[in-house]
């Protein structure tokens, strides 16, 4: 997927003006936010259970993996190979596409059924498959909806059609499937299932992501709410897992710890409808399972974060809680962010994976309110990372000169109390004159975006320093 992150501001403006989207975002938000809050409260209500302690344990697991990522990768590789899987590495998106197309050609694949994989979005895998004459079919209900809507990108990492209303989907289905318009979700799901069933039966290859890779068993774990994940990973004779190198966890025990957090943080569920732990190829006497299993472990920028100040970002387990709780995401939705990952985690990942200079707005598109950090199941300090990216921009002189100059000037003035006092007095006089006797200023040339949406309260007329100095003088006189 080509990044459009540099156009965040313009795209955000469009999204704010989209009334339908705004209505949809409002509804979806409350569902996820309240759902998580309830799930956390329920968890904490059990004797001896402590969600905070669980978050600590989970981030420790993730850190343990990242500290020795090479070792855990090797362990995984050995175990997975022993169970008949082929483990491949991909440096970037282009390499993912090449590997998957090669595998497809080797097995004479003409159609690939896909279960959601954000990495295939990073790589633009669908286009590459199509270009190679292989039909990719998205089988996640959300992803399927987007695919038939002219390959629209997902706007959320776990709820790809977060931004759409039921009515919009009903119309899309009626138009695409040439069926009468339905008004119930169950009916629409049934309709999609009927269409997709054909594809499950005829696809020679299944492509999935993995929520976790378990080193001690060489397994890929898949967490879903739809049965399609199991169809894609077991029906076709070839199964390809595409996932990031950072998705490793050492043991099944660790996996179960993370599983207490992931569904609760993501959808407010205690457990998702399906949790599949897939190990190796179909064994002798097994009724189902793929005959060929490929696990493609992808770097695409991840390895370069290991050992840096941004390493905590690699703890991410892709639950989406940060975006669900982000006031900015809630206002503009996922598409405004312009790449695969939206919200606070996307504002960190996009510049890191696609280039700091290509996503200058994203680290600033946050009020640093830290709602994201508070809900992150693995305690990623998202506001700190956003701020570090802002520092990088300043170091690399990527900020507009006006902004750099204004900050330096402010620092210079604020370091000199007498000068600061003078500047403050002048500013207050100026603002008072602008207010012209009223209690507010309606338009301010120095901050046009501020007064486009709100008034600026007029200052009281004199600064605290002036008034306090006067008081001190006055008290000195009366005391004498």
């Amino acid at each position, binding site marked *: 997927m080509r990044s459009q992150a540099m156009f965040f501001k313009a795209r955000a403006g469009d999204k704010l003006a989209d009334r339908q989207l705004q209505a949809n975002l409002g509804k979806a938000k409350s569902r996820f936010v309240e759902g998580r809050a309830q799930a956390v409260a329920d968890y904490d209500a059990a004797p001896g259970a402590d969600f905070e302690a669980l978050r600590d344990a989970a981030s420790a697991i993730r850190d343990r993996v990242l500290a020795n990522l090479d070792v855990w990768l090797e362990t995984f590789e050995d175990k997975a190979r022993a169970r008949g899987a082929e483990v491949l590495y991909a440096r970037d998106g282009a390499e993912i596409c090449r590997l998957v197309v090669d595998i497809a050609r080797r097995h004479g694949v003409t159609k690939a059924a896909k279960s959601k994989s954000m990495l295939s979005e990073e790589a633009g895998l669908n286009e590459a498959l199509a270009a190679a004459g292989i039909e990719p079919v998205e089988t996640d209900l959300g992803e399927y909806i987007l695919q038939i809507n002219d390959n629209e990108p997902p706007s959320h990492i776990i709820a790809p059609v977060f931004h759409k209303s039921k009515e919009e989907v009903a119309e899309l289905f009626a138009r695409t499937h040439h069926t009468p318009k339905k008004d119930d979700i169950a009916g629409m799901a049934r309709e999609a299932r009927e269409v997709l069933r054909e594809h499950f039966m005829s696809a020679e290859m299944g492509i999935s992501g993995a929520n976790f890779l378990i080193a001690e068993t060489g397994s890929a774990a898949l967490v879903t709410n739809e049965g399609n994940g199991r169809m894609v990973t077991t029906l076709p004779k070839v199964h390809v897992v595409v996932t990031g190198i950072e998705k490793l966890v050492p043991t099944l025990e660790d996996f179960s710890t993370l599983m207490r957090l992931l569904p609760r943080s993501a959808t407010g569920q205690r457990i998702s409808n399906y949790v599949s732990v897939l190990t190796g190829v179909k064994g002798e006497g097994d009724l189902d399972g793929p005959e060929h299993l490929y696990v493609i472990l992808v770097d695409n920028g991840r390895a370069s974060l290991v050992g840096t100040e941004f390493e905590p970002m690699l703890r991410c387990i892709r639950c989406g809680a940060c975006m669900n709780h982000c006031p900015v995401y809630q*206002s503009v939705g996922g598409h405004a962010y312009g790449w695969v990952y939206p919200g606070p985690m996307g504002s960190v990942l996009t510049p890191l994976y696609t280039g700091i200079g290509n996503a200058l707005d994203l680290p600033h598109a946050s009020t640093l*309110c830290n709602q994201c950090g508070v809900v992150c199941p693995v305690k990623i300090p998202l506001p700190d990372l956003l701020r570090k990216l802002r520092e990088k921009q300043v170091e690399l002189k990527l900020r507009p000169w006006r902004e750099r100059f204004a900050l330096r000037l402010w620092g210079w003035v604020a370091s000199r109390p007498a000068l600061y006092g003078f500047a403050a007095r002048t500013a207050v006089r100026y603002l008072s004159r602008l207010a012209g006797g009223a209690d507010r200023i309606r338009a301010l040339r120095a901050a046009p*975006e501020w007064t486009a949406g709100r008034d600026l309260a007029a200052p009281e007329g004199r600064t605290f320093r002036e008034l306090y100095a006067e008081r001190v003088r006055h008290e000195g006189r009366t005391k004498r």
Partner: protein
Amino acid sequence: MTEEKMRVGLFVTCLVDLMRPRIGFAALRLLEAAGCEVVVPSTQTCCGQPAFNSGDTRVARALALKLIAEFDGLDYVVVPSGSCGGMIRAHYPQLFDDDPAAAARARALAARTFELTDFLVSVLGVGGVPGDFEGTVTYHDSCSGLRELGVKAQPRALLAHMPGVELKEMAASEECCGFGGLFSVKFGDISTRVVDRKCDNIRATGADAVVLGDLGCMLNIEGRLRRRGDERTRVLHVAEVLAGED
């Protein structure tokens, strides 16, 4: 035996200095009423937060060092702002990763710096307050005060001491108002959308005033309420309510 008075430095903050001096005086009155000797260093300016949040650590460090020196030797430093208090408490120490001496001084200052209501309740155990506000209020929890300093119960406890005040909680009081410092200047339209949700929640309580502990939120919420045509709901800093008229 005369008891030694606690020497408390008041960090006024630049927004209070510029926009609402009366909040600084209200804080001063509250501290004096609680029996503190209040010191207001005359050279204080800005804590460096705008530079820090913009990624300009050089400027942030210079201003931090200046403030650390100004408030040296005092028993406590009190700030009528969650975000400036959070800057000193949560962020000053990490500004000096490569300068152990400065880091130690920053940590020492951080350890004795408090947001105003937190100081009154947690350190002084204040019971009564001088204010005499009459009416229903709703409290907006500013992000830094809440999540960096744990300020939530303290202002409510102080308001509960005021017989004329009835507190009506708004929905999502912990949600950001969309100010975010320069965020509201860089992304005015997103900020407006966020503050609209806050204004809706405030209005739904029917309160006479929204009370809060941060100048940024105050200017943002007041500015949006007025632009939306709400001339009735007052927007007050908690210090003003607690201290009453001079």
